[in-house]
């Protein structure tokens, strides 16, 4: 059913062995390749457009949903809409992720729009990895959009990472913490190399009372790649928000970070920090005194930074 290339990509982007466990939907080259529902988690194909609805029953505990996407056909362009309805008090881990294997000279592209409706007091951990491989001249393009609406007391952790091999990416993340006491943590890790380009835009609206947002962006730009970050947080109620952009720049790469915080309420407290720089020489030296070569030291530092 799944070939070796597909299995390998699934392991990389979704930590899956074969078809994994729990609720699963594997999409391969625009087709449903595998699906498994559980008692509490039901996945259905949309009828009006490409994509799926994922319904997680209220009170579902310690379950996981894996919905990886694999593109192996060169020149294939895919666009999907996935909607998640997370019931009240549920506590789940959702693993998405997309891997492109492009051996052709035509561009391969996957655009995914993920919308989450997170119910009262529900807890979601969302993990998304993006990865590209293949020898073709064709580009590997990924444009993910992630939109979240949080009800009272809901809490979401987003962990998104672009590991390697994605030539062009435009990410957009929008979070509305509408319900009182809701909170979101967004961790974004990005690695670009060669002449890759990455743009990441984020809008976080803290409109509910006593809401919290933490944005932690870590990125490494190697070779002649370029990255731009626009994290924007707006506080419209008593809230706390912290944006932290940290980038390591190497070779002739370019990184721009433009964090924006807007306070529209006297009890809103927002902070942003942004730092871009090369790996400190002292860090490399220190690891060399521990016996690593300069290259190994650099690799070790990047590994930790992007963990």
């Amino acid at each position, binding site marked *: 059913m799944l070939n070796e290339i597909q299995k390998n990509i699934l392991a990389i982007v979704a930590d899956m062995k074969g078809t994994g466990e729990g609720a699963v939907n594997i999409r391969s080259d625009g087709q449903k390749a595998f699906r498994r529902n559980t008692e509490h988690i039901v996945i259905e194909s949309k009828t009006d457009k490409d994509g799926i609805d994922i319904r997680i029953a209220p009170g579902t505990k310690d379950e996981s949903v894996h919905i990886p996407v694999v593109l192996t056909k060169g020149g294939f362009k895919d666009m999907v809409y996935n909607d998640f309805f997370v019931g009240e008090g549920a506590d789940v881990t959702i693993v998405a992720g997309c891997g492109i294997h492009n051996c052709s000279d035509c561009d391969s592209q996957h655009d995914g729009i993920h919308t989450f409706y997170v119910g009262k007091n529900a807890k979601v951990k969302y993990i998304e990895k993006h990865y590209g491989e293949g020898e073709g001249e064709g580009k590997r393009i990924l444009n993910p959009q992630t939109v979240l609406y949080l009800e009272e007391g809901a809490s979401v952790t987003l962990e998104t990472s672009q590991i390697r091999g994605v030539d062009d990416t435009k990410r957009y993340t929008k979070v509305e913490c509408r319900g009182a006491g809701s909170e979101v943590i967004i961790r974004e890790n990005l690695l670009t190399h060669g002449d890759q380009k990455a743009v990441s835009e984020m809008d976080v609206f803290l409109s509910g009372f006593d809401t919290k947002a933490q944005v932690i962006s870590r990125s490494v730009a190697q070779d002649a790649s370029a990255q731009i970050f626009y994290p924007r947080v707006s506080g419209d109620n008593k809230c706390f928000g912290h944006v932290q952009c940290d980038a390591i720049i190497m070779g002739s790469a370019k990184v721009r970070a433009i964090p924006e915080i807007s306070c529209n309420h006297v009890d809103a407290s927002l902070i942003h920090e942004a730092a871009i720089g090369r790996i400190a020489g002292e860090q490399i030296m220190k690891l060399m005194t521990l016996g690593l070569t*300069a290259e190994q030291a650099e690799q070790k*530092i990047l590994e930790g930074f*992007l963990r």
Partner: protein
Amino acid sequence: MLEIKHLSYRVDGEDGGVDILRDVSLTVEDKKFVVVTGPNGGGKTSLARAVMGIYQPTGGSIFWNGEDITRLSVTERAQRGISYGFQQPPRFKGMKVRDLLNVAAGKEMSHDSACDYLTKVGLCARDYIDRDVDASLSGGEVKRIEIATVLARRSELMIFDEPEAGIDLWSFARLTDTFQEIHDKKEATILIISHQERIIRLADEIILIANGAVAARGSVEEIYPKIIADTVTGCSRLEVDRKC
């Protein structure tokens, strides 16, 4: 044995060059406990960094166990058994104390031995092993982790640069015990840069560095009174001695 012969280190300054080290020659015998002390800015750290290979000297040579290592990289010197604890250790975002100790040991360390090294510097392993070596650690904590990485390398020559700096009284006592123990068991040659009487008093030999040169060297009994006299008089006898 470490032999430093006519070592000089000069850096380009605004108006010409600045001599940081001038014609420094000294030897450190195997398994000795040697303390390097002297006024701030005297060149102690520069000397240690030159031995480790972090600074490339502009003249002279360094021999380690009979081999000329002057042109070897930091990595090669580390692999030959030299280690150095930084005066101001760098921090690493995302790297855990455990990771750093593993790199130092050159292998995945057992939980118990990682704990042993942390205990030797007065840190409770349970609280620190999974902490990131980043800005969340206090100055004294980073410094002690730095020392633990040197201990974990188990090198033949361990150089510590002001290991006492920023360290509380209790951890300091634990640390001096650790140095004493390494010395007693003849586990390594210890070269410590220090301003602390308690460490100076442990030394087999003291080397006084001032103005980029060796100003004096000898046993604690010979050198310590000189240092005290300087402090008491408030003027530097060393400078008077050197007529500069």
